[in-house]
């Protein structure tokens, strides 16, 4: 645990220094002024050990030593738990402990259900010094943290595996930089295997009632007690696919970085890429708002440098634009987080210590109701917060009209960074909406959902029209992202099972398809050093294999059934029609424009006669082995998800049903009034 903590601290020094200071300045006075931490119990009683870990059902003992000079009475031993009652403590009634004596309390771990899960609880030992001579007479409480279940560290290893590879990159001997690519590839393969293990172990039927508020692979320890911050990670149906996608895309991004020349500081490049991957993985598994925010910001910095240092001709402009835009979003999210923190009700931390407020996402979701909170600046508290969060996340998605950083960032970014940006980073926005905005503020979500659906429809149609007008292939693909993520918004706003599941599917599908599209753009750019749509034609003549994959990817982007793009769009459209007929109909119109820009792209690159200038450049330079290696997994997923989407939707639908149930909406049917 110590190692873990030090790593986390290390990783958040730069990006979140500002944040830490800001938070300290904002929070510290109130913490110390308003909510004094209960005074530490007198050291006369010592518990050993302070935490107990049960790998399997069984019993263990806590030994209580009276180190003081006065006798002490143990009054009670209570198990405190927020979730399942898997632990029991031996009853303790008025047990006298003379000075220097010791006693044991038996604790038993017996999971109440056979579902695999992790259990967290604490046992509170209440005692009183029964002599006025003792340092502190009266009742006192000390706690011992309890933990049960198996293999708790899978996600932690998954998140930090890329980070652990960075020292290797820096220790690699000078003059052998060429092999850094292989090293980075091996490092990025680790999260893929861990993610595969996670997917294999994931239980799609795991419900809230099964424990840990419905999260699996949970790791949960207290971290920064001053602000009640915990290290809390876990996945559910909303995030499991995204985590797996991130690991895969991280690996593919390394493959796609092969063409970055050795002179351009590969060490730095791959280090940043790996930091980025840690940040992205962290965002999708963090279940504590502080931790979430740390990872959220951790993504920003490497992305900024990757675009700004390894980008195209206007890289500075694009990088700074990206940075400022997203930082603006981050500030809004931060404000909302702080407000949520202070509005939250008292609870206990995972080790049983009392906490006046909490940043724990499941607790904020399930144990807090913010709807009655007094108005702020004349707005309803929940609505104001929802809007802050939404804007913050919408910048990341991006939602029109906050989207103009995206085309510039994409055009200037190197291929691998574009792939990560489109495939994974944009999903941080939609995921954040669902995980935080939708879940914590359900009432405000219902209030705002019609507006979100309208924004979704606008994104779909506006993005598609913008894509149609582009003359740069990469810009076209960038705008297509805006259009596709509009379907996510539409589905999420529908608040029907079909719609929200469709949105989650669309996130994954877009992750796969847009990754493929940007890889293909990179393939062409590597050879031709230009992406002008009007400069090409007939490329299929000389690069038939490339043309095949290209057509497949653009048809997937068009939403062809049998390829992954279709399912999400269909579900979002059908799922939202019951609620928003106009928005859904307008979005369906986007399908036509989508066909137009995708087919028109194929037409201009691959069909027609091949201009003479490309004959020598492109002939005999069809896809090579490394490019195939980076494309094939995504091609397979595009077809696989398109033909057999059931696993993804099965994994998501349990969580979605519980999300909707929490909002008081039916988890059946197609709509009705909100």
């Amino acid at each position, binding site marked *: 645990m110590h190692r873990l903590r030090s790593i986390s601290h290390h990783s958040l020094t730069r990006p979140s220094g500002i944040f830490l200071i800001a938070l300290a300045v904002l929070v510290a006075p109130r913490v110390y002024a308003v909510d004094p931490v209960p005074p530490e119990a007198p050291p006369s009683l010592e518990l050993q050990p302070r935490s107990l870990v049960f790998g399997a059902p069984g019993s263990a003992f806590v030994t209580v030593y009276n180190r003081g000079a006065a006798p002490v009475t143990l009054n009670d031993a209570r198990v405190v738990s927020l979730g399942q009652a898997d632990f029991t403590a031996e009853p303790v009634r008025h047990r006298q402990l003379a000075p220097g004596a010791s006693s044991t309390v038996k604790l038993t771990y017996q999971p109440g259900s056979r579902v695999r899960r992790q259990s967290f609880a604490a046992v509170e030992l209440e005692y009183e010094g029964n002599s006025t001579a003792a340092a502190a007479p009266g009742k006192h409480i000390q706690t011992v943290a309890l933990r049960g279940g198996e293999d708790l560290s899978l996600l932690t290893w998954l998140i930090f595996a890329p980070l652990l590879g960075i020292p290797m990159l820096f220790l690699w001997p000078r003059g052998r930089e060429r092999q850094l690519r292989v090293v980075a590839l091996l490092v990025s393969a680790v999260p893929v295997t861990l993610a595969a293990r996670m997917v294999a172990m994931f239980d799609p039927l795991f419900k809230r009632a099964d424990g840990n508020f419905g999260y699996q692979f949970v790791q949960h320890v207290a971290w920064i007690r001053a602000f009640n911050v915990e290290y809390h990670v876990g996945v559910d149906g909303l995030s499991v696919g995204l985590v797996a996608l991130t690991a895969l895309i991280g690996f593919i991004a390394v493959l796609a970085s092969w063409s970055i020349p050795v002179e351009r500081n590969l060490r730095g490049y791959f280090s940043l890429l790996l930091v980025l991957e840690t940040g992205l993985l962290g965002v999708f598994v963090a279940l504590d708002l502080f931790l979430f925010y740390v990872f959220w910001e951790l993504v920003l910095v490497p992305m900024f440098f990757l675009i700004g240092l390894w980008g195209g001709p206007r890289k500075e402009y694009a990088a700074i634009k990206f940075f400022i835009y997203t930082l603006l979003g981050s500030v809004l999210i931060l404000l909302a987080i702080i407000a949520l923190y202070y509005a939250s009700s008292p609870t206990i931390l995972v080790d049983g210590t009392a906490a006046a407020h909490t940043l724990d996402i499941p607790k904020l979701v399930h144990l807090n109701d913010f709807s009655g909170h007094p108005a702020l600046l004349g707005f309803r508290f929940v609505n104001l917060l929802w809007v802050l969060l939404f804007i913050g996340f919408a910048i990341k998605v991006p939602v029109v009209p906050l989207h103009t950083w995206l085309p510039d960032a994409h055009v200037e970014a190197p291929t691998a960074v574009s792939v990560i940006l489109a495939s994974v980073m944009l999903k941080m926005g939609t995921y954040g909406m669902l995980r935080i905005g939708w879940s914590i503020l359900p009432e405000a979500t219902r209030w705002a959902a019609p507006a979100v659906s309208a924004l979704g429809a606008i994104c779909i149609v506006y993005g598609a029209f913008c894509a149609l007008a582009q003359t740069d292939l990469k810009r076209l693909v960038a705008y297509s992202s805006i259009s596709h993520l509009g379907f996510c918004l539409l589905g999420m706003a529908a608040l*029907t099972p079909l719609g929200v599941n469709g949105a989650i599917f669309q996130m994954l599908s877009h992750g796969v398809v847009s990754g493929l599209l940007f890889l293909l753009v990179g393939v062409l750019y590597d050879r031709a050093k230009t992406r002008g749509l009007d400069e090409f034609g007939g490329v299929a003549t000389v690069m038939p294999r490339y043309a095949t994959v290209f057509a497949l990817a653009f048809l997937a982007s068009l939403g062809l*059934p*049998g390829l992954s793009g279709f399912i999400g769009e269909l579900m979002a459209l059908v799922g939202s029609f019951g609620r928003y007929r106009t928005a859904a109909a307008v979005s369906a119109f986007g*399908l036509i424009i989508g066909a137009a820009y995708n087919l028109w792209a194929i037409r201009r690159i691959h069909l027609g006669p091949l201009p003479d200038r490309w004959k020598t450049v492109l002939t005999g330079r069809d896809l090579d082995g490394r490019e195939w290696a980076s494309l094939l997994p995504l091609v397979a997923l595009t077809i696989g998800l398109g033909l057999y989407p059931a696993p993804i939707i*099965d994994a998501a639908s349990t969580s979605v049903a519980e999300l909707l149930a929490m909002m008081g909406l039916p988890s059946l049917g197609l709509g009705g009034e909100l």
Partner: protein
Amino acid sequence: MHPTLYNSAWLTPIGTTAALWLLPAFPVAGAAITGFLGRPLMRRFGGRAVGAVAAAAMVGTTIAAALLVGGSLLALPEGGRLLHQTVWSLFSVGDIKVDLGLVLDPLSAVMVALIAFLGTLIHLYAAVYMKDDPGAPRFFAFLNLFVASMLVLVLGDGFVSLFFGWEGVGACSYVLIGFWYRRPAAADAATKAFIVNRVGDAAFIVGIAVLLWGLGGVTPMTGVAPGNLGHVQVVRSSPPAGEGAEPSVQVREKPTSLFVGPTLNFGELHDQLIVQISRPGPIDPMRNPAVRPAVWLLSQKKLGGMPLLFVVCVLLFLGAAGKSAQVPLFAWLPDAMAGPTPVSALIHAATMVTAGVYLLARLSFLFVLSPGALTVIAVVGTLTAVVGATAAVAQNDLKRALAYSTVSQLGFMFVGAAMGGGAGIFHVITHGFFKACLFLAAGVIIHAAEQALPATSADGGPVSDPQDMRGMRALGLGASLPWIRRAYLVACLALAGFPVASGFFSKDRIFTELALGQGLLISPALLLAMLALAAFLTSLYAFRTYFLVFGTGPGNAHPAHGPGSVMTGVVVTLALGAIAVGPWLGWPSNWGNAQPILERFLGPIFGGNAPSAVAAVPVVVSARAATTIEWGFQAGGLLLAALGFGVARVLYRIPAAAPARVSRLTSFFASGWRFDQVYRVLAVRPAWQVARLAAWLDRGVFDRVVDGVATHGVQLARWTGAFDRRVIDAGVNSASDAVLAAGRGASRFQNGRINSYMVVIAAGVAVLIVLVCFLFA
């Protein structure tokens, strides 16, 4: 207590499971082999081998179809004929469960048989026709996939499975139309075909969404909340209503559950639309009138001021219209001629364009609920028939003439589909044969013309297009391609509707059903007249092409090289089919037949529809009058066909001097009524303008705002920077100077004398007290 439901004996039969996946699996396997191994195969054995693999896959499908239809399906009793298979589950969310399921019922069986048979013949032909093309592996892979998609389309058990095939057909046609992708014309035609199809598809998807939304709601009898009854018990089968109801005994012997609510499955949709519900208690139509819950639900809702059912049907019809090239979405079809000829034959005869007719037939139980939508379909179909026929008469390009002929015939099919479905499907079958024959013959003709043409152009004349019929007379094709000429003539007779060729029977059915049918909101007289005109024009353009291509002319100097026996064999087989299928399947009842075979076979599909039409007031036509009407239409059809033939013979048999200038009307017709221009003005140009506007908005407004904010931010930073240096820094500096000076001054107090310190402390305390008292009080 659950409400009692009873049905009218037309519920979807339970059927048995069968390995239906085999049908599309053969061509998929063929596509995999030709696609991935095609190149080595071609290097080793030549292009013919690739075609042979593809054709073998089609033969496999045909055998499988024969076994499944002939063996399994026909073995089941009438009314209980249904084979089904869930290939896998796509997703299941809440109460919406979507499977990739296949169903073989009489309607699918007819389509499967047609697709397998014609597909096989066309593949055989193509194996020879395309053997020398370097792209043969790609061609045959997609030709196979095309057929596989079409099979999934007609076998699909619900909207989603159907749509998989539906779009698969679209994508394969995109690749095949654009097969010679280096030619800009082919590339543009492919793109256009796909985009126009997508227009229909978008409407189709919205139609599904509207339908699902309409079915989710509160049922009248129970008030069950989330909008559906879930699975309910069917407790009794009432006797089938009306006469001629053949299937009566087989339907669901035991009580079974029935789903009422939003569904994407055709069977579930069909059953809940025809099932009736009554309050708990005795089923007594007098005291306890039955309600169709789903129909009631749908009729309660409106969308944009229109009845929901009408909206659903029109949207689904738009989808069908895109695929089946109806006005106004037909302009892609003539352009699609840019693909190789076997593709044209496949698109026009057995697959793709028939998909729309199939959809209407498959959903006829839904469409009959909306007389408004049926009227729209009938009117659009009639218009399409006329537009296509006029355009076909004015074409000089052989393939384009045939393409517009398809457009026109599709109009007939849609009218037939609007009148109940059976006649439309019948025309799909007969048309499949004679149109495939015409196209494949055209392929041979054009091939021969290509070989013969360079010689003619050497005379100094302009090098003419091998597809231009005006130049063909000189080539003497009639003499060099005798079998092709005969087959072509037979197909023309069938197309024109001469008895006893097949087109006569199917066209007659369409006319009769239109005249006798109810359910339209307008009188059929005008439609009948327009269709009669189209029928006359059909005969005219059919024989016009025949006389232009095979007519006697001055040339005959360069006998063209004949086609191989395979190609001729295929064309002749199709011609024989064009004669045989009509009489076989549809020998009319007034000619001494109890019930035509096809009508009887499809009875379970369409039989339940007629009585279920809402509030249709039956206009009683006696059987005798109906027979008279049918005789009348048969005579009229023959007359129109003969008239068309006569006019064509007079005008085109003998070469006429080319008119000095093409009349305006002719060029209007030839351009397909200028629909391309209409598209350009109403859709393409506005779309580009909006796109450019959006791009400008992005660059010129949103980005400028962002950049402006940034620029001003930087400016503000400069100002604050200057303020920082000049004001604050200056202030701080002077303050620090002052502090230093003060320190120097104050150091004088640091003199070590206690009493002076005491004075200072006292003064300080006094100041603090004053401050605390007055400022913080």
